């Protein structure tokens, strides 16, 4: 047998559990470019990424807590993005007249840390099942947002507006930069160890509760950044759009090969999963397919992706990848 791995073998070596999402991404991108060359031309790329950015960021935000395993999930990501949108636009910018990023960014990060602390405390100290605890905060955030601002209105500072145009990649890069920085800290290894096996992680001396809370706080910060990106896309405050991001983000990370059981996957998979959903949406919208069909297509593809990411199928694919070359 040849020692050189086949193309499929090398590809799956690079992307791991995100292999399916990566292949799907290439196919979808090609179709999109053929159908709609103007939208995917280099000059329009900023705006196009700006359209996709809130979903990508919502998926990135959902990733850290899911990686810790033990049923870790944060359903409040979507409504929290909506809440940040309303706070930034309505309260900081319109009411208080604050437009400087030097004030808005720290404020937003602080709110993110606080939200993560609440979710993390409920899930790992009070020990409510994460899906229930964050469903609680999901409802609370949805309620607060609508209470603060019953109808869409407002305007955004120019620098936020740029995140929907030329600078749309910046919030995504910011999240990646934070993540790459964390990889140099013990926290990242602790997080992945925890997702691999909680009991073994505990008997390895890892402070399980602290790591879990920190993962929720990280999710909170990423979700806050997602809220800023959403504000850019909307160009105003809209109290109703946040919640839908939660389930789309969960779909995106599952599609991207981030195991909901924890310990497997990463930000690249989450990004590819979100891009797949965005590109699929864009194709189906091009053909004027009804939104009901759109939902059905999402559901079917999601299930197929999760099946393809399952360990037995992955192992079989790897065997095929090897023997096809031998």
């Amino acid at each position, binding site marked *: 047998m040849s020692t050189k791995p086949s193309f499929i073998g090398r590809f799956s070596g690079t992307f791991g559990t995100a292999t399916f999402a990566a292949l799907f991404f290439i196919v979808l991108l090609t179709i999109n470019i053929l159908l709609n060359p103007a939208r995917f031309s280099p000059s329009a790329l900023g705006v196009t990424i700006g359209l996709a950015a809130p979903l990508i960021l919502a998926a990135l935000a959902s990733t850290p807590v899911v990686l810790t395993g033990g049923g870790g999930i944060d359903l409040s990501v979507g409504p929290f993005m909506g809440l940040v949108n309303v706070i930034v636009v309505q309260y900081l910018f319109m009411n208080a007249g604050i437009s400087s990023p030097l004030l808005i960014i720290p404020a937003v990060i602080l709110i993110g840390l606080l939200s993560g602390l609440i979710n993390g405390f409920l899930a790992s100290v009070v020990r409510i099942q994460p899906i229930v605890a964050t469903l609680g905060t999901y409802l609370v955030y949805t309620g607060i947002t609508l209470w603060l601002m019953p109808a869409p209105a407002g305007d955004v500072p120019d620098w936020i507006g740029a995140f929907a145009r030329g600078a749309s990649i910046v919030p995504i890069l910011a999240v990646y930069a934070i993540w790459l920085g964390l990889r140099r800290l013990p926290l990242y290894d602790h997080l992945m160890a925890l997702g*691999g096996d909680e*009991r073994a992680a505990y008997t390895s001396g890892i402070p399980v509760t602290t790591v879990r809370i920190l993962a929720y706080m990280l999710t909170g910060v990423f979700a806050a950044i997602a809220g800023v990106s959403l504000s850019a896309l909307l160009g105003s405050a809209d109290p109703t759009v946040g919640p839908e991001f939660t389930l789309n983000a969960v779909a995106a990370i599952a599609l991207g090969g981030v195991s909901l059981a924890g310990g497997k996957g990463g930000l690249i998979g989450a990004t590819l999963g979100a891009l797949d959903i965005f590109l699929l949406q864009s194709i189906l919208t091009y053909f004027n397919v009804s939104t009901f069909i759109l939902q059905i297509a999402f559901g079917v593809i999601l299930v197929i992706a999760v099946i393809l990411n399952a360990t037995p199928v992955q192992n079989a694919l790897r065997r095929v990848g090897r023997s096809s070359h031998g």
Partner: protein
Amino acid sequence: MPTPESPTVLRVHDLRLTPAAPLINTTITEGEIVGLAGLDGQGQERFLEVLCGLDAPVSGRIEFITAGGSTIEIKNFHGAVKAGVAYLPRNRKTQGILPSLSVLDNFSVATLDRGGRLGLINKGAQRRRLDHYRDMLQMVFSAPSARITSLSGGNQQKVLLARWLAAEPRLLLLNDPTRGVDLPTRLKLYDVFRQVVSAHKTTLVILSTEIEELLQLCGRVLVFRDQTVFTTVTADQLRHAAIIAGIFGRHDEH
């Protein structure tokens, strides 16, 4: 070997493993190798887990004296590890290995904060430490980045042992460390155990199902029966028969 001036490492005060069991009191000094014997489920495993805070006793207190000389009470595992206690579990599949991670990550998870600056991880230092223990324990694996689950059982066990040796603990608790390990490897591990005791003044507590092993390594054996220490076999009486007698509940003085 401990001398009369050796400082105390651990004090067990009026410990009760079950409500009805007699109290356990013992003191362990620096450089000792203490063995725990008994039929399965007679309390020796719980005792070991209580010593590192993984399990809580019915009553009583465990005091650990750190290298700096301060006394702390062991209440939970994380605190114990921070103070300088390490525990190598018996069941590596459920309590030991982190199955989704590499050999290097499994090895370094308890020592991530060592050798780095400003709290940053120093991957180079981790690799060098792993190389050191790879030679010392004669570990066999293809690369530090190999998945831990791709290793043989004996090598997984060595990675776990290396994880805790690298932490340079003051007190190392071993739960049946050579179970299912072949003879040459077993003898190699005995050498390593003696070496860490003499080189780093580490204190060992070894639970073993092999009486030979306890005779080879230990200066003192606590024999468990009915959730308490039935008898302590000291160095001058350390013979196969004495341990067997204790295990089966006889006070055999001959």
